[in-house]
């Protein structure tokens, strides 16, 4: 097939540059906004998703993890005595005040868990270990927040709510949506740091025995325990994500920005593809005059749009990868998993198809008799 679409597209380099800039801009905007949304969403429920627990026992009507209220640790024994429970551990995720070396204060979220168990512990540990937390006043802090908290080296000592805390290790990439960094420590230390009394806990993490129906166990626990909710990890994660993303409006704003990127892209690409079509209107008229069906002309326009989409996407995704990589070092994660990259490719094709539709409409009504007019 003669390369009419490709030649037309590459004939006007300036217009091609404008088209590709429009698509690239739209792709980058959508990647960044959707990536931020995904990053935020993942971050809000990070503690829950990495807890390795099957069920969470939490105070009543808790909308998200940061809203947990303390309750008596006697419930832990009730949980352990319930048939089908494999293991159950106390867990704390509460805000506390961190004192920097320069006298400044920062809010942190203290995460206390049983260091003899795997449930509720940190992940992505890059220095130190969970067993190091068994040493007095030991804490683990993510390296993303060292500057914010004034940490310069391992072994450094700080104050959390007036209690001594010593940094014994670091994690990497455990972000906090609330901007208060997570500080992992033993349950006992966490009780001290957060001023929780000795007989209180904030959550109970439950792991079911293998082969036990999670739904049945949840129901059994719910009927045995009073004044608390029993949630599956998936439920609790979903509730927390929904709260932060939609109840606060943060997610809606990010999604709207992504939509805006898409709209801007469609407008720019529509305008440039339409202008290209107008430039070649006489050629399309000639094609129709010599007997080309509308479908042939549509194909030429769609091929131009498709080529623009592929090139614009390739450029956009390349720029986006640099941005995503740069964001790894910052507080806000921009995630770009391959299904999302695929989705955005589909969106780019859709965007260009919509842009082509305007041109197609113009060509559909083109009178081939125009070729005889001067």
């Amino acid at each position, binding site marked *: *097939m*003669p*390369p*009419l679409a490709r*030649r*037309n597209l590459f*004939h006007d380099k300036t217009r091609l540059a404008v088209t590709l800039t429009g698509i690239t801009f739209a792709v980058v905007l959508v990647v960044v906004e959707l990536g931020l949304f995904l990053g935020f969403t993942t971050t809000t429920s990070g503690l829950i998703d990495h807890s390795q627990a099957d069920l969470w026992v939490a105070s009543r009507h808790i909308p998200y993890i940061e809203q947990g209220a303390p309750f008596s640790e006697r419930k832990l024994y009730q949980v352990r005595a319930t048939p089908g429970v494999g293991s159950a551990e106390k867990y704390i995720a509460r805000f506390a005040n961190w004192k920097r070396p320069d006298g400044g204060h920062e809010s942190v979220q203290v995460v206390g868990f049983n260091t003899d168990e795997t449930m509720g512990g940190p992940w992505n540990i890059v220095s130190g270990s969970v067993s190091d937390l068994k040493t007095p006043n030991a804490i683990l802090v993510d390296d993303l927040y060292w500057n914010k908290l004034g940490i310069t080296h391992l072994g450094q000592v700080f104050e959390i709510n007036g209690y001594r805390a010593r940094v014994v290790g670091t994690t990497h990439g455990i972000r906090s949506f609330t901007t208060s960094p997570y500080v992992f420590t033993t349950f006992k230390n966490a009780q001290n740091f957060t001023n929780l009394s000795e007989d209180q806990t904030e959550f109970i993490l439950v792991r079911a025995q293998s082969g036990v129906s999670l739904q049945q166990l949840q129901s059994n626990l719910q009927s045995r325990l009073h004044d608390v909710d029993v949630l599956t990890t998936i439920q609790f994660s979903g509730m927390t994500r929904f709260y932060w993303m939609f109840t606060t409006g943060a997610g809606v704003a990010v999604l709207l920005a992504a939509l805006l990127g898409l709209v801007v892209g469609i407008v720019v690409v529509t305008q440039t593809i339409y202008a290209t079509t107008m430039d070649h209107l*006489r*050629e399309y*008229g*000639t*094609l*129709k*005059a*010599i*007997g*080309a*069906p509308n479908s*042939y002309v549509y194909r030429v326009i769609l091929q131009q749009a498709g080529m623009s989409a592929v090139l614009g996407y390739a450029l956009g995704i390349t720029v986006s990868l640099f941005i995503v990589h740069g964001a790894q070092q910052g507080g806000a994660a921009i995630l770009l998993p391959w299904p999302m990259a695929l989705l955005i490719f589909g969106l780019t094709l859709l965007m260009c198809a919509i842009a082509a539709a305007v041109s197609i409409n113009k060509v559909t009504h083109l009178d*081939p*008799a125009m*070729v*005889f007019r*001067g």
Partner: protein
Amino acid sequence: MEVAIRARGVTKIYAEGAARVTALEGVELDLHRGELLFLMGPSGSGKTTLLSIMGCILRATSGSLQIAGREITGLSERELPLVRLNHIGFVFQAFNLFPTLTAVENVEVALELKGIRGARARTQALSLLEQVHLDDKASAFPADLSGGQKQRVALARALAGNPEILLADEPTAALDSHTGRSVLELMRQLAHDHNRAVAVVTHDSRIADLGDRIIRIEDGVVSSVKDLRQPQPGLPHFISSLHSDLHSTLARPL
């Protein structure tokens, strides 16, 4: 001679709001295979409108039109392009080549529309360029060709798929007289040697001697029909001339 296009009582009225302009009125003509017919007349006389109707690009307001023996008056918008594609080749005043394609690719586009693709299309396109003596410019872009060369590429494109009818709108208007004449000689050759029906709209009287017949159109009606072919002895030619004259007389307004 076999009739390629037969028009009977073709009238075209352009209406815009209350204004109505009669571009053609009751035109009768036959275009035969093997002849080169000139449609001549002053600007605005309706020549191009008639050519557009003969080419199934424009619909007549009334009257009938047959292409290769098939009545096309009632055909749908989807069917008309097929008639154009299968029976008619067009040559335009402004060449209307695709500027981003080479000469051979311009011809290939028309072949592709007729279902001829790949190496076969390339071979046929080169052969058509050879027919119009332009095989050495196959890889040239239209911008690098002279006016005459462009028109010959357009002619090669019009010949793609070997249509029996060739319609040309002012094909020499953008050319100097020498080049214009050579293009018309080529068209005459295509009509005579390849048994094609060729109709050319022109107001260039200098090339009128190349045609077989000249139909003059004035104010939308056929004002005269002139047969330039040498009189042939025998009854068939006499009947043909008589038939032609009768048509032109009937077409004249009272």
